[in-house]
């Protein structure tokens, strides 16, 4: 027995099953990201004065990722519209670009993460602070080499002046009191940054896998049941738009404000 309304829309609602399903799923996603955004707001509002970081992220990389995701939403819609007009080759082209955009986004995000993992804050035994990227080739068992600067205190570290001088710093390990990279464990800001962007990146990866599966291995459905295929593309497109919309909120919150 065939399940009703799996392809054709139900007359009273005008929706097919998968569309109802994806909107219910997106509603649960709104609650998930909404809760995390609320956590971010509470953490930020309750941070001591001058102790919430600014300018820790590269606006240009964030902006590039924003443009990449917005462009990918455009190609998703164009691919769906192409299928509606029966232009399968055009659909393949547009959706191929979408997959490339997703990979570009993930590559840039990985680069940003890597940059944070090689970025260290070193507190010396005399109380001075050194901050910069570790030079792995020149770091030895006795000495840590950084390409960085000397903030005068923790407050200066929270809002580093733009264009501050960068120098090569060599610190004997005996003089190091604590040394920690900018991973999620570093402070509240990096914790919420990695949680929000990490969860979002997982959604991007999941969306890209689904879009790729429909675009590649499942493309034969187009010949057997075109309407079902168009519905699948639309549902994956709705998910993709949601993921992009989350980024539209994440970018200003994390990179600008």
């Amino acid at each position, binding site marked *: 027995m065939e399940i009703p309304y799996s392809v054709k829309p139900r007359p009273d609602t*005008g*929706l097919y099953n998968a*569309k109802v399903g994806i*909107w219910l799923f997106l509603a649960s996603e709104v609650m998930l990201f909404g809760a995390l955004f609320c956590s971010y707001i509470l953490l930020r509002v309750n941070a001591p004065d001058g102790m919430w970081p600014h300018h820790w992220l590269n*606006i*240009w990389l964030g*902006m590039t990722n*924003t*443009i990449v995701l*917005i462009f990918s*939403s*455009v190609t*998703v*819609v164009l691919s*769906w*519209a192409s299928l*509606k007009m029966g232009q399968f080759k055009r659909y393949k082209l547009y959706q191929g670009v979408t997959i490339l955009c997703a990979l570009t986004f993930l590559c840039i995000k990985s680069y940003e993460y890597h940059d944070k993992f090689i970025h260290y804050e070193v507190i010396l035994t005399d109380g001075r602070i050194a901050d910069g990227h570790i030079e792995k080739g020149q770091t030895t068992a006795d000495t840590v080499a950084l390409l960085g600067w000397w903030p005068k205190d923790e407050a200066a570290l929270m809002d580093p002046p*733009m*264009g501050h001088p960068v120098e090569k710093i060599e610190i004997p390990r005996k003089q190091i009191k604590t040394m920690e990279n900018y991973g999620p464990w570093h402070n509240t800001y990096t914790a919420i940054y990695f949680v929000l962007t990490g969860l979002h990146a997982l959604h991007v990866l999941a969306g890209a896998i689904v879009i790729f599966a429909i675009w590649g291995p499942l493309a034969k459905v187009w010949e057997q049941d075109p309407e079902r295929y168009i519905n699948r593309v*639309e549902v994956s*497109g*709705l998910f993709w*738009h*949601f993921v*992009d*919309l989350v980024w*539209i909120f994440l*970018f*200003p919150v994390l990179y*600008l*404000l």
Partner: protein
Amino acid sequence: MSLKAFHIVFLVMSILLAFFSGIWLLRQYASSRHAQDLAAAVVFLLAGGAMICYGKSVLRKLKHISYL
């Protein structure tokens, strides 16, 4: 809500983001005088303008597709 309707909602949000970011970076430039702030502001404002033009064309192109 169809993909068309969601795309329009997304576009509106993107346009708002672009102009917000552009203006925010212009204000930042007023205090920092760093050329990269100005350049980023210009990119965002141009992107916002481009998205308005795209939005108009996509509405024309997809007028035969339902919003539901």
